[in-house]
């Protein structure tokens, strides 16, 4: 190099000047190039990755990893003038409010995420003041967290527990001989609103609820709980939104204590393990709400989740036996967030929310849906449309039908309000 410089008679000052000018030019161009093509958007994942509720957090993070790898490998997505790639920053809140609060603070102020996805429930009240103060857009899987005091909280995917009405509705239509039920639930923010929903659904479809049994989160032996449930001699056992760790021993006890009727539940995560502990015959006809994504019914044209069967295959190869109710949900929320961001050309939290709600509709995973919730939650921040009814047949979860939640609401909405009110779960009754 020095030889070349010498040969072309470039002086020291010329060389230094050219270098500075080149550096300045490069420096001037570099930020423009980064902001135009290589922007990485950080998304917060604040959910239980350990503990009793981990089944509704960790599998969702796995799903997000697949989502991010797919989007990033395709070169990112165009939002406004930027091409954005995505990075998920996770924080394990262990389903503990104080840890959720610490996690939200870190994600917003240290990691500078643009959006936070949560499970919600007992952890949301601790995050609410921080979200309100910072204007951070936060999603929950539990619309029962929504209220007029939570303007930046949205429920764009799972409308728990409202979709549970579709399972009861289908059961009443297809098994009209079943006329009585007993409900059990853990006594928490997931269990109580779900009980109110099942009570409304059973009443709407003429099924008598003979007992409602609450149990503590620390319960280790479910034999007495099941003995109490079976003492009413019900046709249907309703396991409400019991955690996966509770659904298993409850089913096992129902089997051991000789229950012969039908079981309906919000979830049946890792159901093949329940079958191992009971029998295929016992679990035949078990009704719940969360399909395996290898189901052919997910390839119907109204489904907005991209390539569900491929997603399930990829997920199952990477994490065998780890598919749960939430595996696809957080990824689905990201699809809706990207749509909202693209509409307004911005990733900033205050811009994306209006973008997501533009026109009052959104492309929910199970079909086009509407932003709704004023009557039940005091705010239209839940995206509600169709939801699948899933039944175990011959040891495998099968989507039997999609049913419309808004249609059920138009027929029986007042019952839902009545039972939410009786259980103190209406938005204006919550503390």
């Amino acid at each position: 190099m020095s030889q070349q410089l010498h040969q072309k008679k470039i002086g020291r000052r010329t060389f230094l000047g050219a270098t500075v000018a080149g550096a300045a030019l490069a420096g001037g161009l570099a930020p423009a190039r980064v902001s135009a093509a290589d922007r990485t958007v950080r998304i917060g994942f604040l959910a239980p990755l350990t503990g009793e509720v981990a089944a509704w957090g960790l599998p969702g993070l796995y799903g997000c990893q697949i989502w991010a790898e797919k989007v990033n490998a395709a070169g990112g997505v165009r939002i406004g003038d930027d091409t954005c790639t995505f990075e998920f920053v996770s924080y394990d809140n262990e389903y503990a409010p104080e840890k959720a609060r610490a996690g939200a603070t870190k994600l917003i102020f240290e990691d500078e995420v643009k959006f936070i996805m949560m499970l919600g429930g007992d952890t949301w009240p601790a995050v609410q003041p921080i979200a309100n103060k910072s204007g951070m857009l936060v999603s929950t899987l539990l619309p029962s967290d929504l209220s007029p005091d939570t303007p930046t909280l949205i429920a764009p995917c799972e409308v728990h527990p409202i979709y549970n009405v579709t399972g009861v509705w289908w059961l009443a239509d297809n098994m009209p001989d079943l006329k009585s039920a007993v409900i059990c639930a853990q006594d928490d923010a997931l269990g109580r609103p779900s009980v109110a929903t099942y009570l409304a659904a059973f009443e709407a479809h003429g099924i008598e609820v003979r007992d409602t049994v609450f149990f503590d989160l620390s319960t280790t032996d479910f034999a007495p709980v099941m003995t109490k449930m079976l003492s009413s001699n019900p046709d249907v056992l309703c396991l409400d939104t019991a955690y996966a760790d509770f659904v298993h021993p409850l089913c096992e006890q129902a089997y051991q204590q000789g229950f012969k009727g039908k079981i309906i539940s919000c979830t049946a995560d890792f159901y093949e393990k329940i079958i191992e502990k009971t029998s295929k015959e016992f679990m035949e006809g078990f009704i719940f709400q969360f399909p395996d994504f290898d189901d052919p019914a997910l390839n119907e044209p109204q489904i907005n989740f991209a390539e569900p069967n491929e997603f399930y295959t990829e997920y199952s190869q990477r994490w065998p036996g780890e598919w749960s109710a939430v595996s696809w949900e957080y990824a689905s929320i990201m699809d809706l967030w990207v749509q909202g961001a693209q509409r307004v050309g911005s990733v900033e939290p205050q811009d994306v929310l209006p973008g997501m709600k533009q026109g009052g509709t959104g492309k929910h995973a199970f079909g086009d849906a509407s932003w709704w919730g004023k009557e039940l939650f005091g705010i239209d921040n839940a995206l509600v449309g169709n939801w699948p009814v899933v039944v175990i047949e011959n040891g495998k979860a099968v989507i039997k039908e999609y049913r419309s939640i808004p249609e059920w609401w138009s027929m029986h909405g007042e019952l839902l309000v009545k039972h939410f009110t009786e259980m103190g779960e209406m938005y204006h009754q919550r503390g």
Partner: protein
Amino acid sequence: MTELLLQTCVNAVYASSFMALIAVGLMLIFGVMGVVNFAHGELFMLGAYCVVFVYADRDFPFFLAVMIGLVFVGVLGILMERALFRPVRDNPLAGLIASIGLLLMLQAAVAMGFGVRMEHINPPNQATFHPFGLEGVVVALQRLYVIIGAGVVLASLWVFLRRTRFGWALRACAQDPEAAALQGISINQTARLAMFIAAAMAGLAGALAAPLVRTYPYMGHSVIVTAFIVTIVGGLGSLGGAVTAAVLYGFVHTFVTTFSDGVIADIVGLLLMLLVLVARPTGLLGVRDRD
């Protein structure tokens, strides 16, 4: 109604047996060593994970896994006595804090080794039978294993404490360690023995109940709270009191759960403890401190 009552009694016998195995060990450690062992729930958890490792993951016979769990957790108890509790023998608070530290370490170690999710363990035998010949009263064979295991172990412990020299030494140390030492009883050896027996009982409970309970790294938390209630109700330092209180608590909790509510049953359990503390501060069979 008769069948419901009998089924509830059967459920209560299981709950009592299960809790007695854990509470008696907790009491033994406190009686002999003066340590409030908060890590006792984690010893229970380790027993369950021995079954996961040996039986569920590697298909060895279930009862071999139970025996390995019993011995492994018992030996761990000896190590705990030597490394944790002996150096702080004269300082109960330090022992308590050391046990809390160990609790966290054991939880983290199991979470790293096995993951945080619940393990699914199929019982070796899914048979059920109908005691009293009534169709509406059912007992799973796995639950019977726990009941029989608790009965055999507690009866053996009673004989050991009443009929053997080691048992007399244990009781002597529990009553007055200094007087026992003056009589030539080795405090270290006695503490080691107590820790082995107590830990092995917790390991046995975890191993036998692993297919029945939610097996996950934090499962010790639920049982340790109940075990402390039982030891307080029974009277600190009284093994007979621990068994009596386990039976009382097991029946009260099971009956209230069945005829009222599981959440109310937990409240009633705490009220039972408060009632005993008010009416009889030393517990049901506890003795007043001579100091």
